[in-house]
């Protein structure tokens, strides 16, 4: 992982503080999340304390600090989905998996992410799990949806 991160850092020669966000995005893109090690390396490179980077990164929903689960559940929280009840859907998923958005279940199987409009407003509320779309989802369906993924693992 260290080498991967150093590879990314190499793409930013003479980086200043303003490279922080793009760097964080690149690292997350590559290793899936912002590990402690990654943040420490970036901090060392840009000469920014880890607490500051953590502060900045937690300001944005897009960053996660745990590796993604095998099934990554993206819950659209865009306007259309919101109006049609995506908050209750999110809450149902959170209580089903016993984790919050941004976290990963202990068995490493599931993780949740809140995302902005994913361009499928006609199908709102929308879930995207590892590229598979679930349209017009209701809170009641969550149990079944999650179980189908769980079954795949049995």
């Amino acid at each position: 992982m260290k080498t991967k991160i150093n590879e990314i850092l190499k793409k930013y020669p003479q980086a200043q503080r303003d490279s922080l966000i793009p760097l964080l995005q690149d690292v997350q893109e590559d290793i899936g999340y912002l590990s402690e090690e990654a943040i420490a390396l970036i901090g060392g490179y840009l000469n920014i304390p880890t607490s500051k980077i953590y502060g900045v990164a937690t300001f944005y929903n897009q960053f996660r600090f745990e590796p993604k689960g095998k099934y990554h559940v993206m819950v659209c929280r865009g306007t259309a989905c919101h109006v049609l009840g995506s908050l209750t859907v999110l809450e149902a998923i959170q209580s089903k998996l016993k984790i919050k958005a941004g976290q990963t279940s202990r068995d490493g199987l599931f993780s949740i992410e809140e995302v902005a409009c994913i361009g499928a407003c006609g199908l709102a509320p929308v879930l995207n799990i590892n590229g598979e779309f679930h349209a017009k989802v209701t809170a009641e369906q969550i149990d079944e949806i999650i179980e189908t993924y769980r079954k795949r693992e049995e």
Partner: protein
Amino acid sequence: MNINIEVNGKMITAKKGETILSAINRKGISVPTLCYMKDFVPTGACRMCVVEVEGRPNLITACSYPVEEGLRIKTHSPRVVNARKTIIELLLSNHPDDCLYCERNKNCELQTLAEQYNVRERRISGAKNLYKVDQSSASIYRDPAKCILCGRCVRVCEEVEQVTAIDFVGRGNKTIINSAFNKGLNVSSCVNCGQCIMVCPTGALHEIDHVEKVLSAINSNKYVVVQHAPSISVSIAEEFGLKPGTDVAGVMTAALRKIGFKKVFDTSFSADLTIMEESAELIQRIQTGGVLPMFTSCCPAWVKYVEEFRPDMIKNLSSCKSPQQMLGAVIKSYFAEIEGIDRENIYSVSIMPCTAKKFESQREEMTQKGVADIDAVLTTRELVKLIKMYDIDLVNIEPEVTDTPLGTRSSAGKLFGNSGGVMEAALRTAYYKLTGEELKNYKIDEIRGDDKRKELKVSVAGLNLGVAVVSGLTNAEELLKEIEAGRSDIQFIEVMTCPGGCVAGGGQPITFDAKRVKARMKSIYDIDKVDSIKASHQNPEIKEIYEKYFKEPNSEKSHHLLHTHYQKRNVLK
């Protein structure tokens, strides 16, 4: 250039470039502030300081708005007062409301403002903050539920100490002050200086309590002894209605005996011991081509900083333990032996102006055969609590003298409380060691006062010595950079983490009145002026302990008990 503004119907002159707040304060007009800190760039975060400016639709923050010609300001119009009151009500809406049990009860800016703005009913009630307390640190207790997000702690930690252990984490109503990855201060780069505590307006930050364990030790069959740091006797007076800075050494000693401590020792004695060892080490380093510049090692926050951020410079740190730990080691060896007490039965307490001393006392290096040299560290604030708890009338009791041995000090040892004091004491003794004569003029003005850096070049017995004194780790770091870049005219550097030294330590009574710190500092210098024993090597008890026990500085025995080593620390930094 002067600028004329009208405040509450009266014309006042302001200086170009200054803020409304600074202009009105100079004329004796106050507005409440929360996020503002003197000498820091304003952030305008809390909006407590808002004022009404004629012709402006919005209220303006006095702490950050520069004066302009012709401004017409109202500082207490109904609109302004109402706005401030609403801010306070909002801050209280998710606040825990357990003032009765709060560390800062009666000394809380939020509480004072609520009273001042007549907030006497709950109009807005929000969901209470449910955050976990962070008590992972040996020194600092953080309760984010009481935090009002003023950001003062964050700024001190970053700007004064260059540690940046904490920052704003998260966003919106979920924002919290925390260490990286919310992992707790114990694994962060926090150096335990407590400067964040000193600026926190509420009870969100305080020291880890040692009062309870001291009380139970006193009420057990342990042999409980206490030492007090040089700055303590000049720092507690103000908490008992006496003039700030008054030296109450004698009555404090009496009070400590009334509380039940069997022996009262003076850390200034072991400060003298430190000087004997440290000056010998310095001379040795200079004469044998050792690593220079040498850094003082009395400040445990500074030591931790070097271990974390400057591991390459660990070899520059003096190997001397701090006075607290020297005395701790001597109490459980020399003292135990001469008194015939089982060292394991001694419970050794120290009273320090410092929170980092709690951490230091728990370092593995500060133990002998698995027994800690210091069992509990009380801050000045905790001592005040103890005295109040025992109902001791500090004004009317008879003063008493400290115990011997380990209780007699020189005034040089007392100087350790001030930034520059360790250096001054060291120079007095080094001069004597190098020339065999006493310094004629004891007072070394160049390294007194509260400048952020003090430097001095002296020539003693053909030896050219450059010394520097810094306080505040940002100032220390600046000097380290110069040394890294090749500066070689300095051989000895005194570093204290708290700006101004221990008199302004993180364990001191909480006050925003800089005059109090100055009064403490002056009081220490006044003591030095009148005392007859002005240098560590003249202290008769120091002579005695070397004759009877250590033989000479840097002897095998002193290395065993009075010196230590440091280690690189991997923390989230």
